[in-house]
């Protein structure tokens, strides 16, 4: 029988590093990642689950970390933007985002990159429509998405 708790010590593995922290049951995963783990690449752009700036990959599933409680992530494997590149080398999406000027202020970029990664992981050769559907849950106020869509398409080509 699992007893109700108001706080709990949880363990998560983020980008390969394991962390243990005590969290209140009410703490959102995004605040846990940013404030408790100091991984500030994951951002907050709204308070209603619409903007996608907080998108991360939890146990292989792309989700918005502002609509999941940290305590629900106990034992989970989490990928954030900080884990995209490998020892200093940029992920090809990070490269093409730069090459195609797919970012201006860069605030939506981490969430956008995680959505793009999740797309390419399961669909290496997406159509433009599929790319747009994949980032529909990520709001960008700077670029009008034109160059973001191009950058993801370019990364797909580079990867195939």
């Amino acid at each position, binding site marked *: *029988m699992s007893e*109700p*708790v*108001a706080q709990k010590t949880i363990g998560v593995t983020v980008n390969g590093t394991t962390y243990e922290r005590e969290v209140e049951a009410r703490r959102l995963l995004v605040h846990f990642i940013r404030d408790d783990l100091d991984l500030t690449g994951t951002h907050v752009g709204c308070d*209603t689950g619409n903007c996608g700036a907080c998108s991360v990959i939890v146990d292989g599933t792309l*989700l918005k970390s502002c609509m999941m*409680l940290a305590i*629900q992530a106990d034992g989970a494997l989490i990928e954030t933007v900080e884990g995209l590149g490998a020892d200093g080398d940029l992920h090809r999406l990070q490269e093409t985002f730069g090459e195609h000027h797919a970012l201006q202020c860069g605030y939506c970029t981490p969430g956008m990159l995680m959505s793009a990664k999740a797309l390419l992981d399961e669909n290496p050769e997406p159509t433009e429509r599929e790319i747009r559907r994949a980032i529909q*849950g990520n709001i960008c106020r700077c670029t009008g998405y034109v160059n973001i869509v191009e950058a993801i398409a370019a990364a797909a080509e580079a990867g195939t």
Partner: protein
Amino acid sequence: MLLASVEYARPRSVDEALSLLAANPNGRALAGGQTLVNVLKARIAAAELLVDLNDISELREIRETDEGLEVGPMVTYTQLARAEEVHRGRPILGEVAAQIADVQVRNRGTVGGNVCSSDPTNHLPPVLVALGATMKVAGASGTRTVPAEEFFLGVYMTAVGSGELLTGISIPRREGGDGFASVTIGVDGTCIVNAAASANGGVRVALGCVSATPVLVEVASADEESVRAAVGAAELDPPSDIHAPAEYRRQLARVVATRAARQASEAA
């Protein structure tokens, strides 16, 4: 963004979940959290205990039976949109699930959450009503089944009483064709008005966003005139908001009803 204090439990079985909910009348079942967590973030509504259903694997299954489909309430929209069983059995379910919100929400949001939150703008309530689904509601005194058209009681209110849990949704085998149409805020956005239809000789049309709960309109034939007439006869009294004055919703109801009915009869 900042929730009020709340307790959390993660049961491994339906019985465990039921006893947790029975023990705390202000407890709430937490499914995908794509609505509930937002409500808690806004601190509009308070819950003392969140009973997380994500570890109850039996609620995640989609099964084909002689009668049709058995869909577990913890099945996500993504799961529904991709399941072979759904494509074979009742494809409209997958087509509609694929239109809900965005990838992240579809990955997390569940069928059970969608119907139990009973937000008038949700996609699935009218679909389940049109398809004549039945819902399994479990409680301390055992399990009862409720037809979809009796399941939705109001905004955020369903036949699932306190201490109870939705444990399954039965979708009858397809005999005719199904359809769905909506007008949304932006592409694949929140529905302003939606309609689901199931045609088999006559057509059952369920309208969403025109009342607190889906409005079922049964029409003898799926032709445009009959459907329009039937929707007119339903004397809808839809709510007004910034996206749609009541009069506009009445107009959209006629339009999406006929479009859903047309798709249904063409698919029949």
